[in-house]
């Protein structure tokens, strides 16, 4: 899939996980004052939700590539999820 413009605004998955790790550490270490840690906790809950959303999204089709005009690669077709086809051992 080409980059989703909406995704660019949010954190990438990797960034979200990193932020979450940071929040959990901060809460666990306990150096953060109680009110701030409550705010962080709320942020953390939101991040977990976002991450789960990304995980739940499933790109279904395999995209086939081929040479298009100008020598660039283009999508020329799609494959379904592979069942166990018979193929000779390559």
């Amino acid at each position, binding site marked *: 899939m080409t980059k989703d413009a909406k995704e660019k605004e949010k954190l990438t998955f990797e960034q979200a996980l990193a932020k979450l790790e940071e929040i959990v550490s901060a809460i666990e270490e306990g150096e953060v004052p109680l009110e701030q840690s409550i705010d962080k906790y709320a942020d953390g809950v939101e991040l977990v939700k976002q*991450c789960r959303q990304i995980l739940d999204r499933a790109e279904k089709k395999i995209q*086939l590539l081929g040479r298009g005009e100008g020598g660039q690669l283009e999508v020329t077709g799609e494959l379904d999820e592979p069942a166990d086809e018979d193929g000779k*051992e390559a």
Partner: protein
Amino acid sequence: MSAKRDNLFDFFDPSRAKGSRKGPDVGRDVTRELAGGDEAARGGPAPGQSAPAASSAPGGESRGAPAPSAPGQSAPGAGPGGRQARQPMSVSLLVARVKQALADAMPDFVTVVGELSNVKCHDSGHVYFRLKDSAAAIDAVMFRAAAGKLKFTPADGLEVVAEGRVDVYDARGQLQLYVERMTPKGAGSLELAFRQLKEKLQAEGLFDAARKKPIPRFPRAVGVVTSQTGAAVRDIIRTLRRRWPAAAVYLLPTPVQGEGAAGQIAESIRLMDGSARRLGIDTIIVARGGGSLEDLWAFNEEPVARAVFAAGTPIISGVGHETDVTICDMVADVRAATPTAAAELAVPDASAVRGWLSEAAARATRRMRRRLDEAGLALESIGRSAAFRDPLGRVRTGVQRIDELAHRLRGGVRHRVAQARRLAEPPAGRLAALHPARLCDRGAAKVDGLLARLRWALSGRSKRSGEALVAATGRLAALHPARLWDRGAAKVDGLVARLRWALGGRSKRSGEALVAVAGRLAAASPVNRIRLARQQVDGAARQLDAMSYRSVLRRGFSVTRSHVGRILRAASQAVVGEMIETELADGRLSSRVAGAADAPAGPKASGVGQPAARCPAEAAANAGPTGPAAPKPRPAPKPPDAGPTLFD
């Protein structure tokens, strides 16, 4: 190096013989000569034996006539077996005869093992070299067509097995091996080629660990370069989908073996790398299922290695089985043992990530709960502390101080008292009068009175019993100790300052304490105030009792105690003959009970407590410190109004 060989070459190579540099161009007629020469050698006159070497005139003329340009006389053809040539033959002939002899003696195709040296690869594609062993060497050439099929690169020092034809290179009369096929001795050519390329690329740094790029943990899309058929592509796709369905998958079908495969694979890698940014491909997998070295060969070829190295996108190489390591694997950023392993390295396991997310959420939640609990406990413990449980502890202290001061006002050194009294009597008196305990006393006394009236009213003595009841109830409410306490507290407030002044600053601190106390008094909750007031009242009342009965004593009353200190209230409590103690205003008397007689009957003291203590206090309050010279006491509560008291 050529010194040893010279003998052989001298023999055959005219250019090495003294004198001439270059052999003559013998050309075409040597065969004829050879034929002619042979006949002559077999004996019998033959038409021609030798022709002048330089000329191309066919046939020889005279037997012995020396031709003018002939380099030398050739002996009459002695034939193949002959040792002595009767006439000198031409070089061409010589070479031709040697060639013939060689052709007769040697098989068409020879297989030779030897060491390569002097290898020269020309631009033309032909490879010239020398094949040697410890005692001999032979020049060799491998023409482009044959050389092109070589898997390995010929190099000095390599031991090879060469197959080809041996012949004489006419122009130089040089023995030469024309090599058709060559393989390295011992190892296969593929293995050798592999080793050669590996060393070359390693030296160039293509395998350097420092140049390898990290594989992105969460790729948005993965590009796959492999054949569209076969187990490899199926395994890869299945694994990618199972582990991380969130990533898109792009497949660029590419032949992975056969003629030209290496070039195609390299091209695919280049194309995919070029479009990676546009398509969002974060990682590329190059893969092929298992096979023999020949099957996997394309991935050991230089174009593939160069393409992998040049790519900006991280590349995972998964070629063959676990034990197959190809050059492509070595150049790639990560080597995977199999195509499936390549897919596993390309994407994380979503279920593991989910598990981490849940665990992180649980950890945070647990910790938050604990922190909130801790905060709650901290609050509770603060709530239980002395300051909160007993906020009016200082009030008690203050009240006690009041009592002390009041006591000092009453007792103490005479002139000081007199002095202080003169100054402080009005406010102190009012203070004492307004002591919450006293107010409560009065209130209690009023309650007593009202209760008595109630009883009287209830007994039906008055026509106005009903009205009296109502009035009594109303007044009862008005005399609620809490209310009196409030009033008293406010007055204490105002009078503390005057008291302080009156005492000439001696108890500034206590005065301040009282002020502070008064302030807190105002802030204290009604409930607590009432509760504490009751306690205070009890305590203070007792103290006041203790103090106030002294004035009663001065009027002539006395307090009698048994020998154990118990106050005797009734004559019947005394035992004839025991020691008793009588307290008078200024001291105590000890005496022994001689006899007892009943006092005149008094009214029943039911439900009203200790009349002896109450009324005198009341009386003292009325008769005492409110001296004649004092202005009319403003806040002084009026004596209980109307109604019969218990002492009527």
